[in-house]
């Protein structure tokens, strides 16, 4: 080996690679899925229908429409089930492509920004009206995720008995979800547009005009509301 080759090998040990993410955990739950993309959401939808039907047989007190009325959130639907469908805990955050804050503002002029600049901004235009995600932390280790949708996109949440959902006073309407629940994004025709269903943590959802905002992270209700109130 020449001196140059030796030097290159030595250099190789000193390259500043970003830390390897935990890919093994990230892909868990994605392995069984069929190859064709359109079948993925269908499979998720079916799982939910099945679980919902079982739940109905157990005479769950709150019906879907009742919850919807109570929440007053136009772009959010909540399905209460007996037991949550099995989805990955982390899931794959289908954030779309990374953009600058300026580009996000240009493409989504309706965007509402809270105090404090996010670490990264992501735009997913496969949903009608677009979806913008503001991430604090890194995409593989998200500390705080604020997702905003507008127009015909909407958020579907599947909650079970041990998820608490309560109405909170923020924006035009708001709701706080405490405990694990399943979250999906889809359009008004019921088609899932991006991302697989995944398990979400404590979440605040609220409406500001035509924009629906969703804040997720390891937050208490008070902390979430404090951050949310800075968004305008």
């Amino acid at each position, binding site marked *: 080996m020449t001196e*140059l080759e030796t030097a290159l090998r030595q250099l190789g040990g000193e390259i500043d690679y970003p830390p390897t993410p935990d890919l093994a955990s990230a892909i868990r739950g994605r392995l069984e899925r069929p190859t064709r993309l359109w079948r993925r959401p269908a499979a998720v939808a079916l799982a939910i229908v099945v679980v919902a039907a079982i739940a109905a047989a157990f005479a769950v007190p709150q019906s879907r429409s009742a919850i919807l009325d109570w929440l007053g959130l136009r772009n959010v639907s909540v399905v209460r089930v007996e037991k949550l469908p099995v989805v990955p805990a982390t899931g794959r955050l289908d954030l779309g492509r990374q953009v600058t804050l300026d580009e996000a503002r240009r493409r989504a002029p309706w965007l509402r920004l809270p105090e404090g600049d996010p670490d990264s901004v992501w735009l997913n235009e496969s949903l009608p009206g677009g979806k913008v995600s503001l991430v604090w932390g890194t995409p593989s280790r998200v500390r705080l995720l604020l997702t905003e949708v507008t127009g015909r996109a909407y958020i579907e949440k599947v909650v079970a008995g041990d998820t608490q959902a309560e109405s909170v006073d923020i924006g035009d309407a708001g709701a706080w979800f405490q405990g694990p629940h399943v979250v999906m994004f889809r359009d008004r025709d019921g088609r899932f547009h991006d991302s697989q269903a995944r398990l979400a943590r404590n979440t605040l959802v609220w409406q500001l005009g035509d924009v629906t905002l969703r804040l997720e992270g390891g937050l208490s209700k008070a902390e979430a509301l404090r951050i949310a109130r800075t968004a305008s």
Partner: protein
Amino acid sequence: MVSRPPEDSQLVERARSGDEDAYEELVRAHQGIAFRTAYVIAGNAADAEEAAQEGFVKAYRALGRFRAGSPFRPWLLRIVANEARNRRRSAGRRAALSLRAAGEESSGGAAPSPEGAVLAGEDRERLLEAVNGLREEERLVIACRFFLELSEEETAAALDVRLGTVKSRTSRALEHLREAYD
């Protein structure tokens, strides 16, 4: 070469019959090299992570087409690198490779060089600059062969070129580096 207990080939066989735990073990064994290969090609961490993740998922689905008995790593790297290239094409400028700050531990667990410190700090910066300044195809072959320490076969798979191309490109790149660096 240290053999891993159990061997890749056994894990691949189990994964092929639907054993997800076996596949997870394979992912853990190879996620480091897969991610770094994707990073070298895609040029940023987010694309590299996506490419490596998507590559592992696609490889799992394609296990039925994997030729039993052949090595798993080059086959996997081909899929991951292809994902990274697709993302590289659609994104903007890549970030150049940079050196870790002095004193930082290696994240990849690379063993200290047996040759000892051949290069002083300044020279290392200058050499890396020369590598970053190479034409893309030459930069990649140097990164694969010397930085990631891939074999010629693995480099051929990752860069989707023939073995002969890897050899000729490597010697051309080394020549250019000598010119730029000396």
